[in-house]
């Protein structure tokens, strides 16, 4: 009976705790203002820009309109770059996961008994951030350049033909994306593996699951929240990235991604409606892909 009484009292208490208090609203205010000012207003202006049409009088000026055909035009013109962007981003996410997970596992579980080494390894994962990623990407361009050591080495081994190049290829772009996003993948996975209770792993072994089976049925599901955040943190910025794939860095016109065409339309061609429409397409595509992903992976694991 006492339990029954307790249960009802907590059930009653819960809505009370959830009732909106004015202080909570007050605390939310700066965040809401920030969101309104720096997200909703630009988004709104982006939508307006994307529907503009060229000024019939002044060349290079645009006037407000409702030209939804802009979207059809950019999709027709730039669908290869759009598809490529998501393809490259997906590949980079996969490779970053394949490299980041074992790394996170090593730091979070294998090194658990040596906290000092663990801290050192974490610093090493974060260390690349101390140097601008532009510089690091340029450095890779140098390493991959036609006169660079890597191409020379591969040509000497006759793996690459004499006239081959790495820079400007899809490989170089995906490599650059993977390289740049590995820490974003590793850190969230590390966080969830670091607090993984190894007693669950022991229980798996006790219940006849081989180490492999225990890994796939216990360790991996318990690390899912970290994998989820890691893949999102990699995939979303990678899909919109315009540095790695640009001609100044690791890419060429053949590897241009949606980020590169948005950049070109805004800054070079000054076709603002096209750039705005592409930005919104990118945003919508990411939203759809990510929500499908989150839904499939089960939202409760994110908590």
């Amino acid at each position, binding site marked *: 009976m006492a339990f029954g009484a307790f249960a009802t009292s907590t059930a009653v208490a819960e809505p009370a705790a959830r009732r909106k208090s004015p202080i909570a609203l007050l605390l939310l205010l700066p965040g809401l203002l920030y969101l309104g000012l720096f997200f909703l207003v630009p988004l709104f202006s982006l939508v307006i820009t994307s529907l503009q049409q060229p000024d019939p009088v002044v060349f290079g000026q645009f006037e407000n309109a409702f030209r939804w055909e802009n979207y059809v035009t950019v999709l027709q013109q730039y669908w290869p770059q759009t598809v490529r962007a998501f393809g490259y981003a997906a590949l980079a996410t996969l490779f970053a996961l394949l490299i980041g997970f074992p790394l996170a596992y090593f730091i979070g579980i294998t090194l658990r008994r040596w906290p000092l080494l663990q801290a050192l390894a974490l610093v090493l994962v974060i260390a690349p951030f101390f140097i601008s990623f532009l510089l690091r990407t340029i450095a890779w361009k140098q390493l991959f350049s036609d006169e660079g050591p890597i191409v020379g080495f591969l040509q000497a081994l006759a793996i690459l033909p004499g006239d081959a190049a790495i820079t400007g290829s899809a490989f170089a772009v995906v490599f650059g994306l993977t390289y740049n996003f590995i820490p974003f993948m590793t850190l969230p996975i590390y966080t969830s593996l670091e607090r993984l209770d190894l007693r669950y792993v*022991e*229980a798996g072994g006790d219940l006849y699951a081989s180490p492999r089976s225990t890994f796939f049925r216990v360790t991996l599901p*318990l690390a899912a929240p970290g994998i989820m955040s890691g893949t999102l943190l990699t995939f979303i910025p990678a899909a919109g990235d315009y540095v790695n794939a640009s001609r100044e860095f690791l890419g060429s016109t053949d590897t241009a991604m949606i980020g590169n065409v948005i950049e070109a339309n805004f800054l070079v061609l000054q076709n603002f409606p096209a750039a705005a429409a592409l930005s919104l397409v990118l945003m919508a595509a990411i939203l759809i892909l990510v929500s499908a992903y989150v839904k499939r992976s089960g939202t409760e694991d994110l908590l």
Partner: protein
Amino acid sequence: MSTSAVPQSGFAEAGADLELVGITKRFPGFTAIEDLDLRIPAGSFFALLGPSGCGKTTTLRLIAGLEEPTAGRILIGGKDVTATKAFQRPVNTVFQSYALFPHMTILENVAFGLKRRKMANADALAHEALRLVELDHVSSRKPSQLSGGQQQRVALARAIVNRPALLLLDEPLGALDLKLRRQMQIELKDIQDTVGLTFLHVTHDQEEAMTMADTVAVMNKGVIEQMGAPQELYELPHTAFVATFLGQSNLMSGAVVSSSGTSMVVDVAGNRVEVPRERAQRHSGELTIGVRPEKVTLHGSEPKRETGRNLVGPGRITDVSFSGVSTQYEVTSPVFGIFTVFAQNTSISRMHHDGDEVWMSWDVGHTFGLADEPSTVPALRFDDDTDTSMIATQRREQLEAELEGA
């Protein structure tokens, strides 16, 4: 590992022997288990009893394969499994910390072991095991949505559903209320009896150990102090630790003053106390002897000495607590310290009162002699001329020491 000890499918048909040979486990800077030898015959219910931190869980982990022994060998069913991994041993554990998989439902948890062994009707068997612990109605919940006692029962179901040849239970009933605990004890005993599995049961509850087990082992500081049938252990403890850990004991010490072929007489501060030779672990010098409180009879006046009965006294009753079926008296004397006496409340027995002067007697055959040096038994360190206040202090110190040790 081509020859795994785990049957690929089906349940164990019978329990397996367990044998530990010279097992030692050292953690960095700490020896948890010291040269442990243990043999548990197939199909027996073995209880491991001991104070917190004495190495019970460590022993189970070694047997389950979750910890590697520093030295020694482990044999299950005659097979040396020392080098095999946990998942290859025909052993299941009910973990002290439950260790239920938080991302799986209760049903998935319970069916986990069966599915790993590719049992056909895993879900049906899991439901059956859940019904056994009365939790089938929560089978689709996650562990975090259960109470502690419910989680413990799920942990129990998850292990016994596999019907392993050897089941290790690490305080599997600790979080349950008395009624449920009794019920689970009966269920466990039932399963063990019908299938003939070998159970190694760790518990803090000595009553549980005594009522359920065929053999009880009392462990202290990484060594097994004594092992045997519950009654044997209770009636004839070999060490002061066992005498006081398993039930209560009145301990006394003194020098052997005379000795015949069958018995010895010990001088306890002027009282001559006789102990049968075969009930004593040592036979000369200073001796610690004891008697269980319920074996002692109180006398309001000095009775006549009889052969075959030990008599000590006088002492003064310092505490009386009535508990229905029996009354517990505490008798204090500057000579032999504190004596605890349990008296059945039968109609003819007369009540004694606080402050009464009493004598105590018991059958010589109930006296036991311990293996400990008297100087190492904390309860016995007092002199002949100690006054009551000092005894009170000693008693408090002794209690504190016990609490610290616990």
